């Protein structure tokens, strides 16, 4: 095989592999991407029942109800609209009323969001008062400090 033929074979092969990959990516993008929606988005957009979405918002105070067999229902709000959520399983460590969460699942025909995964955002910006005071006094305190700067923080939310 000549050098030219060899090169062509290689390029052809690479082309095939890349095309396959691109096809896969496009297909997956169409099918496997989950959109992130706030309760207002859901109210506005009339998302069809059964479509997978990610719902983000705050857990409404006083809305968490423990059912049987580790079933939990609660309400997610963005201070404008609300969505009722039902979930079965262990809630994440940081799940609390008033805390921001992201739930993945679908809206059932009754308009209840059936979550199969609930993630609570880590709030790493906790800080004892006196330390905060000390930092403020010394001018090192930034209100907008990035919690995510800590190592590995986004590993699980």
């Amino acid at each position: 095989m000549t050098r030219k033929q060899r090169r062509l074979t290689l390029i052809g092969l690479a082309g095939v592999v890349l095309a396959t990959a691109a096809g896969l990516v496009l297909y997956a993008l169409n099918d496997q991407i989950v959109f992130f929606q706030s309760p207002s988005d859901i109210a506005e957009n009339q998302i069809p029942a059964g479509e997978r979405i990610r719902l983000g918002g705050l857990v409404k105070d006083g809305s968490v109800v423990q059912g049987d067999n580790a079933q939990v229902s609660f309400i997610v709000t963005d201070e404008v609209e609300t969505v009722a959520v039902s979930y079965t399983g262990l809630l994440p460590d940081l799940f609390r009323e008033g805390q921001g969460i992201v739930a993945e699942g679908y809206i059932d025909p009754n308009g209840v969001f059936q979550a199969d995964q609930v993630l609570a955002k880590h709030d790493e910006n906790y800080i004892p008062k006196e330390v905060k005071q000390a930092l403020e006094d010394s001018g090192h305190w930034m209100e907008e400090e990035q919690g995510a700067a800590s190592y590995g923080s986004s590993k699980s939310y």
Partner: protein
Amino acid sequence: MIIEIGHFALILALIASVVQSVFPVWGALKNDQRMMAVAPPLANAQFVLVLISFAALTHAYLTSDFSVLNVIENSHSDKPLIYKFSGVWGNHEGSILLWVLILVLFGALVAAFSRNLPTQLRAATLGAQGWVSFAFLIFVVFTSNPFLRVAPAPMEGRDLNPMLQDIGLAIHPPLLYVGYVGFSIVFSFAIAALLIGRIDAAWARWVRPWVLVSWIFLTLGIAMGSYWAYYELGWGGWWFWDPVENASFMPWLTGTALLHSAIVMEKRDALKVWTIFLALLTFSLSLLGTFLVRSGVLTSVHAFAVDPARGLFILGILMVFVGGSLTLFAWRAPLLKTGGLFAPVSREGALVLNNLFLTTATAAVFFGTLYPLALEAFTGEKISVGPPFFNLTFGPLMIPVLLMMPFGQLLAWKRGDAWGVTQRLTGAFFVTLVATCLLAWFMGGTGILAALGFGVSFWVIFGSVWEIVDRVKPRKVGLKKAWSRFVGLPKTVYATSLGHLGIGLTALGIVTVSAFETETVLTMQTGQTQQVSGYSMTYDRTWDQRGPNFVERVAQFTLRQDGNVAATMMPSKRVYNVSGQPMTEAALYTSGFSQVYISIGDNMDDGSLVTRVYYKPLITLIWIGTLVMSLGGFIALIDRKLHVGAPQPARKAVKRPVAATPAE
């Protein structure tokens, strides 16, 4: 005083890196010995200085010196000693300092081990290394300085994020960083080759060990991180296709490709330009990973825009290094002499195919990781590209790689005999078939996909050891002779076999867990017993106890198999004193390669306990596989031979001993 000495040492290292960035490369281009001579002592000095500064920071952590802002933000006097220690790099500033420490350690290692290298190559390499360390030292000193002081000092710190208070943190980042940063050496070597305008045999010989070292550590680091996430996050996942994970996985993929193309280059003097390109690409992806993790861009694009100093700085470093190196590549690579020729069906051909698939897979991961960020940045639309996307794109691209693996291993250099290799692999094929059927039967029937997964995994496992079997031929020559042959095999054969065997084991673990794991959520009363995946699990009691910096509620479960007690498991839920942050600690029971995993939730109103129980069949194989892979890499590393790929002579070798004409 110690802290300030550490701070000064850091700054002195920065200035040393400035000098190192200028003279060695200048000298290499002008062939000036004096200028080139500054490189090794400066590389050593930087290492010692950054070591001093790292030790000073560690000292501040160990003594809870709350006059240091970084210690306030990430430590607490009640924290156990080990976490005071690992807390040094459990935060942005400290981890970047560790990054730099490993970077300059590699610089010093190159200086120490490179006496035999051509002086120009050595100086240019160390000079390029100087650029990298300059960029990151500037970053540390001006945007991420861990030595900033606070006056008056508070009496207590904010404590380390409880999730990071784990032995995993002590091990995982250093391993990962050695991997990431090790590729900077390879990058510097590539830059040096481009600057000088030639790649000689010494270059090829030199690059491979550094690739191997980096690859081994990156492999271990990723595996460690995966295991850490698995037991620490409390929900039994071992890989999330999370951007942070992808950030380390992408350099691993191209690093693996680089490892293979470096073999071709070393043994066959071919694929030089491609290897250079992969070297640049791999380190660029390491930088990209650093950018993703360290800039805060992942938490939210918004947060990044609010405090952009750090993010923009790393983005700047990223663009300068990626853009600069690719420009240099485009400009200088055509000058490089290309090397040996090979037929498409040959060991080289197989390795090219491996490279092709690995880089394509990297591109898919790259796309999936960055697309949501780009979309949010440009349109504000938030999407989540989760495991389904990656499983669907990355998975299919890996299947051909796995299928071809045993073939590539057996193909001869230069021109191979595909049919011959297929014949040699017939045995492995049948063993695979039998093993797949056995495992499927043992698991009590399986779906078609899982069966195919088992098949592919076993194919890799048996195919990779088949080379050894085939070369030793125990059935023909008898055990004693076989043993002496086995011992006499070149180390590279073991290395390859182990590396591929590891992949097979990991694949087997992944397939089995994905297809057969069970998850049960139970609400249990004290004394209640439940059946879970062939075990009976009794919830004995709960009690509260106090740890050094947390209080925890511990639940005790007794796991019985066929009436015998298999294990007593004590998962717990902790609340850390300073942060008030709760943390679930799972309990694991390992039996064979499988694990039972229990994590607990809150007590319900009626006193029952929400319990999540997983049965994870063969899950430990995932990590055992990575250990085997690393062992293969280690054996390749200690093989001191120079590696010539002896080509299969052409059929009419006697008449035409040299089939291919010399390159160019």
